[in-house]
Structures are given as structure tokens and as C-alpha cells.
């Protein structure tokens, strides 16, 4: 009734579908289970064999585990054999049943039959747990001394397993190992060498865990004495004295034993000069005498190279090793090329680390040998480069890694060209990584600025989509740092690249558009340069090379180029943003060209965007239009009345013209608009380089930059993105000292302010024409601190403000339309005499008090789980005697604070006292550097009282230190 194993296999093979097979197995499993339950002893052997087959097909067989144990205990050899086989396959180390096996194993180990003892040793070697190892180690040890080589070799490996499970037993077995090395049998020798390797590794790890010096353990010392013996064994294999035809593989004497010996020698020679010297000769012999026609020989050579590199070998030997690898690189077998590339890059990395880590004296020595090996390696450069064209990606990746390490001053141009070639071919997911590598290489080894810029632009042309923001900003920095000729070259090259592009290489477009705006005037002249020879060998050619001239462009062409980019259907908004900035810049750059058509076109494009559905674009284009018009002397925003915010302009601005001061300021502003704050960028770049130290990472805030809607280069850096550098923060809060600084910051703030426009009341809101009264929007919050002047000097009538600031305010829009009434100049006096406010439930801090309007900030922590977040409420108090209208509070915070502002409960503040309702405005701030930096607000309040427009600025910083 029970099926034979053979039948089951046949049945399963006959199954046409998986379902059918499953049914057969399910039926058979049921049969076996019944047999187990009914204790059908004769079928035990057959059932376990069937279970093994099912197990191999991936079906559950756990119910048969106990049957295996029973078979193991059987006195018959065939049953024992299948029992052990089942035990080794069906049971895993975690199985509880395994505990039961310990005793049976012990009995079998002591069996006279060498095959039974062998089976038990085999089982120990394959699945002994730590507990079993401890119990059975003495029995295994007995077999190490056995007369029979069959048992000796099995015992060696079983012991290796036991020792790796229980590292503390290592020391007891060291002596035994020494005697076994004298064995004649290859089988025992290879196992004992493997046992020694395992012991060394286990010992190393154990000593490290125990806090001892892993190179000074007793066990290692004992083994080190055997180095000459091991070297002799290896030499015997080479010289055929130990020749045995059984172990010969394709004319190589026992390659497995040779490889194992070399591995062991590597472990022993590592960090040990004496042992390394003892093995030097034999290593040289292996390296020179091994046959390379067959894979077996190459395996030995490969191991030998690793040993040479891993020990303190002589220089000559190292060069020999590199040359062997060089020969490997030329091999047609991919496997051999792969191991060569792999080993080479590992060696270089190790050497680099060593050179860095050691002190001067040692590193001098190491570097010398490293240099020898390095120069040997440089000879194989071309071979490595060829590997980049291999169809197998793993070879390409290895080669890339290696090339990256091979670059130096002399070969940078050639190797970078290869990297760029590869960049074109490689899969997209690797492009960003390669871009970063190109950047690092270019950064370190560029022969000149033009080449550097040229390479970076070419990279962007190939992989502008994938290049990280770091790459893009680095390109911008390098371009702007270079001399004027390079500027012209970069601008010309980028115009050409943008024209050729299909609008998908975002990075290229961003940098290109930026560069065109920055150096647009240079585009109007031809650019001539002498191309350099790419190789030093071509010196003759280089001297003959004729200068290449890039033709001058017409302004209209330049503008059209940019427009074509923005017209592209897939054009991203931040590219459009940058394009707008570029138009504004170009209007200045081309001003002297006298090309009215181009300038008209710029104006038209900007005007077109001023009705854009994107708030950001609209805002930007309106601002730029205003700026451009102001520069031309045309006042753009409709001004209903002459009462300008700052009395200065009101006296001069009549009709449609603006003051010359404003004009000049606007012109200045446009001219200097895109200041790339190089120092900030460079500092950041340096910080990044330090930070990632070889591995490429993209800083999160970098990635977030475009999302802020800002021009990464132009704007974000102004404020200093990193809160870690107090110096940068300092600049934005420092009182405005010089006009130049002021307008730069001013513009940056103007644009970055838009990040908070989300809170603006309506989408169609136009900052230029709407009266400020209607806009209690935080959109204007940021510009404030730019005026930066200390509150005391920033009075409404102050004439000491720089003219540029006036322009800015002008830009900000027309003054509110308000009724006239005499100014209550003395309003502020009455502040002092007002009765104390009703007892606040929350703590308050004084905000400001100006001309009768005062405000206090109520502060609290609404969210106990988020300490950084606090809620502020500005409570306004009016002591002027007449209602205050058109209240507009603007708040600026340092970069480490995030702020969200609600509109005020009312823009009209009634006279306080009585039952008049208090006007409040809620502000939620999150201090990301809580504890190290304190919350600080810069506020600007504007209001109208009795028809008189008032402005006041103040700093609020009285919040409890460390808590807000």
C-alpha cells in the first residue's frame, strides 16, 4: 500500500500543473502521517526518503523530524544513513528536536564503524548548536587523533564548526592543530588549514570582543611559529615533490590546498613584518611559476595577489602583484577581469586609508610602496577604461570605481572624457552618482578654469536632469569665480546647449538661464579661445590648433532662446521663475545695445506673466516690471495720492516720473541683482565636501530649495541657509550699514518673502496696486528686517534712510487711501498715562508703543508635546483718542524660526478702555533651535490715525530665555 520513493517521484514528474502536484503531495503527506501515527516501522526508511524529496520541492515536512531521530538511533547502517541525511536536511538549528540528538550523536561518535562515526561527525559539522558543540567537543577531539585519515579530516571540520559556535574553547585546541600539520593526506591537510583559518578568525573576533589586542593572542603566536612549515608545504606543492595525481586539476597541483594555504598565510602575515618576510619567497614563487592557462591557476594567482596585498610584502612583490592583475584585466574571461577590477579598487582604497591614518613617518613609507603600486597600475589605465564598455554591468561599475581612484593631475582630461562617455550610456539611476564623481574629480584636478567650466557644462548637457542641486550650484560658483573670458565662453556654450536641448535637462536649463542673465552682455560679442590638446602627447598638435570663435549673438536671439525654454510644455515653474529673473537682468545687460525690439520683447514677456495664474510668477514679473520701469524713470504703480510712506519721495515725485535717486537705485539694483553670494556658496560647498567625505549625499535643504519657489542661487543663499553659521545670520540682522549691502539683501528678501504668501487673502492679490490696508498679509513680513535699521532711527520722518530703501518701499505699493486728520504727534505721551491693561491670563511681553498705538505679545505653548512651537498673540491698544485704522503688522523672524501668521481680528483698533474689543493677531512660531537661540521678532507696524500715516519698527526679544 505504501508507494515506493521512485513511484512518488515519477508521479510528481507526471503532474502537468502545480495544482495537480500539490494534490499528489498532499495525499502522500497524509499517508506518511498515518504511517507515523501507526508506527509502521518498516516503512520509516522509505517515508523519510519521500519526505526529503517533498522537502526539496518546498513542501512542509516538519512532522517527519522525529522519524529522522528514530532512524538515527537504529542499529542498521542504511536506516542510520537516511536518518542522518534527513536530520541534516529537515532539521534546522532552531529545531527543538535537535536537543534529543545529542546523546545519539555521542553514541555514534564512539562507534567502531568508521562510517557511522563519520556520519555523526558530518552531522555535527553541519548543524551543531552552541550547546551541542560544548557537549560533543571532547568526542570530536578524540577523532582528531584518530588513526584513520577519513575521520581525522571530518573531525577537523566538525571542530571548526564547534569552535566558531563557542569561541572560548579555541585555546584548548591550539596544540592539537600543530601536530596535525605533519599529516601526509591532502584531505587532512586541507581541512586542518581550513580549521586554522577558522580558528584565527574566531580568535580575532573573540579577542576584539574581550578588548585584547587581536594580533597578540596566544593562539596567533602559536600559529605564527608554523609559518615556515606552511611556506614549505606550499613550496612542495609547486615543486612537485608532493605531487599526487588524484589532486591534480588541469596540471595544477591541488589548487584548493594552495588557495587555502595562501589564505591562511594572509591572515598570519597581516600586520606582522616577520611572518611576511618568511613568506615573501614562496609568494614570489607562486606568483611567477603558476600556470595561467586554466581557471585553477588563475584562482591561485588571485589568492596570491590578495595575500601579497594583505601582508607587509616587499615593494617588488607588490608591483608583481599589480602586474598580475594587469594581466588579468587583459584576459578574455569576464570572471577574471571582474576579480582583477575588484581587487585593484580594494587595494587602492586600503592604501588610501593607510596613507591617511598613519603618522608622517609610517605614511611616508606606505606611500612610497603605494606609489610604486600606483604607478604600475597607471600603466593599465587604458585597459580599465575599456572595461567601461563591457556588456556586464558589474564589470562596468567596478571599472568606474577604479577609474575614479586612478584620476590624477596628468590624466584628468582623458579620464574625465571617459567618464562623460560612460555617463551617456549608463542607466539613469547611476547618473547622479557619476555627476557627483565628475564634480569631485573636476574640483580636485582641473588644469584650468575653462576646462573645468567646459566639463561641468558638458556634464549638465548629458545629465542635467539627474545632476543634483549640489552639482548645479557648484557649476554656478565655478562659472562666477572664473575670469571674464571664461564667463563669455560659458555663456556662449550654454546658449548653444540650451538651443540643442529638448527641454528636459532641468539642471542645464537652470544653470544656462542663470548664466545668460548674468553674462548676457558678453553674448553680444564673439568669444575666441584656443582649444587645448586633450592629451599631453599631442603637444605638436596643440601648438598648431587654431583658435575657435563663437559668434556673437543678437539680443533678440538670446531672449528668444530663453522664451523657447519657458514655452516648452514640460517647463517647470522654478525654471520659469529663473527665466523671469534673467529677463530682468537682460533688460539691463542689453540696455546699451540699443536693440529696442529685444527690450520690447522682454517687456512683453514680463507683462504676459504679470497675469500668470501662478502667484509666484505673477508676483515676480510685476516686481521686475516695476523695477525695470523705475530704472527707466517711469512710475508703474498707480499712486492715488502723494503722501508717500516715507515723506522723502512725496516731495519730489510728481506726475509720472520718479526721483532720480529712485531711478538710480533701481538701475543699481538691476545691475547688481543676481549677486551670487559666493562666499556663502563656497562655504557651503566646503561644508558639504567635508561632510560626505567621498560618499555623495544631497543635503535636504538643498533639495527643498526649488520648492521654496526661490532662485536657489540668487535668493536662498542670501539669508544663509544654514542656521549653523551664525555669521550668516548675522548679516541679515545687522543694521544696514552700506547701501550696496542693503539693496542686495533687500532684493533677496523681496523675493524670498514670497514663500509665505500662502497666507495672502486672495490669489489675485496684487502687491503693487492694492492698498496696504487691505493686505494684512505676512507676505511683506520678511522685507522688514532688511530695513534693518534700529527701531529708533526708523521713524517715519527719518531722512537718514538710504535712497534704495525708499525705492523698495515704493515698490511695495501705494500708500493706503485714508482720510486726512491732523497728526497726533503727542499721542505717544498719553501711552504712559493709560491705565494698566486688564490682567492678562497669559504672560505678555512688550512689543512697541508708538504714537498712541501699543502692542503687547501674549505668549504661550499650546502644544505640550512640541516644545518648539509657541503661540503668540499681538494685543493692540489704542490710546490716541481716535480709532486707528489700516492696521498692518508685519513680523520678520530669524531663519531658524518658522512663522505662520493669521490676519488681525480687525484692522481698525478702537480707543481702548471701556467695553471696546481688543484687537489681536495670532502668530504661531516654531523655533527650530530652541535652547540655543532665542525667539526674536522684528516687527513693523503701519497704521493711520487721524488721517496721518504712521510707521514704526521695533524688535521684540523679551521672551523667557531658553524656553521660546
Amino acid at each position, binding site marked *: 500500500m505504501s508507494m515506493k520513493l*521512485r513511484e512518488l*517521484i515519477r508521479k510528481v*514528474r507526471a503532474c502537468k500543473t502545480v495544482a495537480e502536484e500539490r494534490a499528489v503531495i498532499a495525499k502522500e503527506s497524509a499517508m506518511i502521517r498515518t504511517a507515523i501515527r501507526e508506527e509502521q516501522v518498516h516503512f520509516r526508511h522509505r517515508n523519510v*526518503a519521500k519526505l526529503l*524529496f517533498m522537502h*526539496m*520541492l*518546498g513542501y*512542509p515536512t*516538519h512532522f517527519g523530524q522525529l522519524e529522522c531521530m528514530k532512524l538515527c538511533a537504529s542499529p542498521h*547502517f*542504511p536506516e542510520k*544513513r537516511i536518518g542522518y*541525511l534527513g536530520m*541534516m*536536511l529537515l532539521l*534546522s*538549528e*532552531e529545531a527543538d528536536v535537535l536537543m534529543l540528538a545529542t546523546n545519539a550523536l555521542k553514541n555514534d561518535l564512539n562507534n567502531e564503524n568508521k*562510517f557511522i562515526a563519520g556520519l555523526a*561527525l*558530518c552531522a555535527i*559539522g*553541519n548543524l551543531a548548536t552552541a550547546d551541542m558543540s560544548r557537549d560533543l567537543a571532547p568526542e570530536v577531539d578524540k577523532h582528531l587523533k584518530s588513526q584513520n585519515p*577519513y575521520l581525522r*579530516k*571530518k573531525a577537523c*571540520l*566538525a571542530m*571548526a*564548526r564547534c569552535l566558531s559556535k563557542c569561541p572560548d574553547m579555541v585555546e584548548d585546541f591550539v596544540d592539537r592543530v600543530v601536530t596535525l600539520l605533519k599529516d601526509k593526506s*591532502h*584531505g587532512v591537510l*586541507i*581541512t586542518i588549514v*581550513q580549521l586554522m583559518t*577558522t580558528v584565527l578568525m574566531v580568535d580575532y573576533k573573540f579577542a576584539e570582543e574581550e578588548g585584547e589586542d587581536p594580533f597578540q593572542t596566544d593562539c596567533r603566536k602559536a600559529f605564527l611559529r608554523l609559518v615556515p612549515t606552511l611556506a614549505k608545504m606550499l613550496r612542495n606543492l609547486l615543486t612537485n615533490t608532493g605531487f*599526487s595525481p*588524484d589532486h591534480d*586539476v588541469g596540471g595544477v597541483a*591541488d*589548487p*584548493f*590546498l594552495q*588557495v*587555502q594555504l595562501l*589564505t591562511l598565510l594572509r591572515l598570519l602575515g597581516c600586520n606582522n613584518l616577520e611572518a611576511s618576510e618568511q613568506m615573501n619567497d614562496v609568494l614570489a614563487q607562486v606568483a611567477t611559476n603558476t600556470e595561467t592557462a586554466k*581557471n585553477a591557476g588563475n*584562482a591561485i594567482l*588571485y*589568492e596570491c595577489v*590578495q595575500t601579497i596585498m594583505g601582508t607587509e610584502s616587499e615593494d617588488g612583490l607588490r608591483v608583481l602583484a599589480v602586474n598580475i592583475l594587469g594581466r588579468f584585466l587583459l584576459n578574455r574571461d*569576464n*570572471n*577574471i577581469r*571582474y*576579480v582583477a577590477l575588484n581587487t585593484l579598487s580594494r587595494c587602492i582604497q586600503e592604501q588610501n586609508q593607510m596613507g591617511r591614518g598613519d603618522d608622517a613617518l609610517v605614511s611616508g613609507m606606505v606611500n612610497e610602496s603605494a606609489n610604486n603600486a600606483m604607478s604600475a597600475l597607471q600603466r593599465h589605465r587604458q585597459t580599465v577604461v575599456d572595461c567601461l564598455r563591457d556588456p*556586464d554591468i*558589474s*564589470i562596468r561599475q567596478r571599472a568606474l570605481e577604479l577609474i575614479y581612484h586612478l584620476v590624477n593631475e596628468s590624466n584628468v582630461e582623458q579620464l574625465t572624457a571617459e567618464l562623460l562617455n560612460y555617463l551617456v550610456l549608463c542607466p539613469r539611476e547611476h547618473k547622479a552618482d557619476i555627476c557627483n564623481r565628475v564634480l569631485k574629480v573636476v574640483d580636485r584636478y582641473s588644469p584650468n578654469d575653462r576646462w573645468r567650466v567646459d566639463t561641468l557644462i558638458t556634464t549638465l548637457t548629458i545629465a542635467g536632469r539627474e545632476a543634483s542641486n549640489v552639482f548645479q550650484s557648484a557649476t554656478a560658483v565655478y562659472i562666477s569665480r572664473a575670469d571674464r573670458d571664461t564667463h563669455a565662453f560659458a555663456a556662449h556654450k550654454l546658449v548653444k546647449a540650451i538651443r540643442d536641448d529638448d527641454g528636459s535637462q532641468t539642471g542645464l536649463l537652470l544653470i544656462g538661464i542663470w548664466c545668460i542673465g548674468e553674462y548676457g552682455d558678453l553674448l553680444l560679442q564673439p568669444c575666441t579661445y584656443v582649444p587645448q590638446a586633450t592629451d599631453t602627447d599631442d603637444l605638436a598638435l596643440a601648438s598648431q590648433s587654431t583658435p575657435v570663435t563663437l559668434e556673437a549673438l543678437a539680443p533678440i536671439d538670446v531672449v528668444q532662446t530663453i522664451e523657447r525654454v519657458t514655452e516648452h510644455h514640460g517647463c517647470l515653474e522654478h525654471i520659469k521663475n529663473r527665466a523671469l529673473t534673467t529677463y530682468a537682468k537682460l533688460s539691463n545687460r542689453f540696455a546699451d545695445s540699443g536693440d529696442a525690439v529685444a527690450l520690447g520683447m522682454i517687456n512683453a514677456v514680463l507683462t504676459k506673466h504679470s497675469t500668470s495664474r501662478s502667484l509666484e510668477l505673477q508676483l515676480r514679473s510685476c516686481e521686475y516690471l516695476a523695477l525695470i520701469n523705475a530704472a527707466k524713470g517711469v512710475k508703474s504703480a498707480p499712486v492715488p495720492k502723494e503722501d508717500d510712506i516715507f515723506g522723502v519721495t512725496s516731495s519730489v515725485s510728481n506726475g509720472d516720473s520718479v526721483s532720480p535717486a529712485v531711478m538710480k537705485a533701481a538701475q543699481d539694483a538691476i545691475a547688481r541683482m543676481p549677486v551670487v553670494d559666493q562666499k556663502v556658496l563656497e562655504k557651503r560647498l566646503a561644508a558639504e565636501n567635508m561632510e560626505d567625505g567621498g560618499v555623495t549625499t544631497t543635503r535636504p535643504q538643498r533639495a527643498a530649495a526649488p520648492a521654496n519657489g526661490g532662485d536657489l542661487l540668487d535668493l536662498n543663499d542670501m539669508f544663509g541657509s544654514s542656521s549653523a553659521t551664525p555669521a550668516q545670520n548675522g548679516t541679515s540682522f545687522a543694521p544696514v550699514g552700506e547701501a550696496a549691502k542693503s539693496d542686495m539683501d533687500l532684493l533677496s528678501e523681496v523675493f524670498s518673502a514670497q514663500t509665505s504668501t500662502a497666507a495672502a487673502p486672495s490669489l489675485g492679490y496684487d502687491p503693487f496696486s492694492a492698498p496696504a490696508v487691505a493686505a494684512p498679509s505676512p507676505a511683506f513680513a520678511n522685507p522688514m528686517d532688511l530695513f534693518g535699521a534700529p527701531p529708533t532711527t526708523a521713524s517715519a520722518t527719518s531722512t537718514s534712510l538710504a535712497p534704495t530703501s525708499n525705492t523698495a518701499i515704493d515698490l511695495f505699493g501705494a500708500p493706503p487711501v485714508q482720510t486726512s486728520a491732523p497728526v497726533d504727534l503727542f499721542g505717544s505721551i498719553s501711552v504712559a498715562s493709560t491705565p494698566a491693561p486688564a490682567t492678562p491670563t497669559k504672560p505678555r511681553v512688550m512689543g512697541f508703543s508708538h504714537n498712541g498705538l501699543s502692542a503687547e505679545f501674549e505668549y504661550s505653548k499650546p502644544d505640550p508635546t512640541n516644545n518648539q512651537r509657541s503661540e503668540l498673540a499681538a494685543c493692540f491698544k489704542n490710546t490716541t483718542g481716535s480709532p486707528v485704522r489700516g492696521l498692518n503688522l508685519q513680523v520678520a523672524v530669524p531663519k531658524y524660526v518658522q512663522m505662520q501668521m493669521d490676519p488681525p481680528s480687525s484692522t481698525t483698533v478702537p480707543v481702548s478702555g471701556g467695553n471696546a474689543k481688543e484687537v489681536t493677531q495670532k502668530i504661531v512660531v516654531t523655533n527650530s533651535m530652541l535652547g540655543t537661540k532665542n525667539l526674536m521678532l522684528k516687527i513693523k507696524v503701519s497704521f493711520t490715525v487721524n488721517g496721518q500715516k504712521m510707521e514704526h519698527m521695533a524688535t521684540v526679544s523679551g521672551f523667557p530665555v531658553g524656553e521660546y
Partner: protein
Amino acid sequence: MIRFFLLQNRQGKTRLSKWYVEPNSNSASGSASNSPELEKVRIEAEVHRLVTARDKKYTNFIEYNNYKLIYRRYAGLFFTIAVDVADNELCYLETIHLFVELLDSYFSNVCELDIVFHFNKVYSILDEFMLAGEIEETSKREILDRVKLMEKIE
């Protein structure tokens, strides 16, 4: 050392699988909820997928999890060994070849069916060849003698 030895056909049927290191203790990607048996089956399927997808021109090495797979194809059968990253790849290629030669001389011109129907013999050859993840004997004659001797006892 060797972590596991796999013998699969082109369709992904496992013909031999021998594990020297339990999968869960060492594989980083293995989900903890899986039992070792299920994990083994999962890895075997994944290895099959990786190995069969590779072009002939490619190397015979695949970096997988935190170890390396070294495979060799003989007709419709894939022999795969998983070893530590620092191990000598070329030497293991030779190991696979020696094992195939062993099978070939034992079954005299081995084919897949021999392995299917005599899998227990294949296992015992493997046990004489490798032990505890290391190579135990490299002489073909020695191994075959032992296996035949054992069969005689049965």
C-alpha cells in the same frame, strides 16, 4: 565559507539544496516573521530568478545580500554556491566544476534525471566533498571510493 549549495534546473525546481548557515541569522533582508524553512524557499526562488536572467557573457558572480553567489550552468542545470564576500570566487568556480565531475563519473554521464531519482546519493557525495561549509576532500577517487564503499555496506 560556503553558506549554501544549490542545484536548480532552468524551471526553478530545486534538485539539491544544502544549507551550512541558517538563512535568518545572516540575511539582512529576510523578514523576521518567516520561519527558516520558508526563508530558504524564498531565497532559492530569488537565486533562480537572478541566475537565469543573466547573459552568458556576464560574470559568474552576483553580489547578493551580504554575500556572493557563484554559479555555473551545465546544460539545463544551475549550480550555485553562496559564499562570504572575501572568498576566492575563482576557486569556488573550480569547486563547482569538481562536484560536477564527481557526479559525472559516479553516474557515468550524468543527466538531470539521475539527480532527481538518486537525490540521496547526490547528497552523500556532497557530504563527502564538503562539510561544515568547507571543502573536505579534493581527490575524486577518494570521494567516489568512500561513497561506493558505503553503498556496499547497505
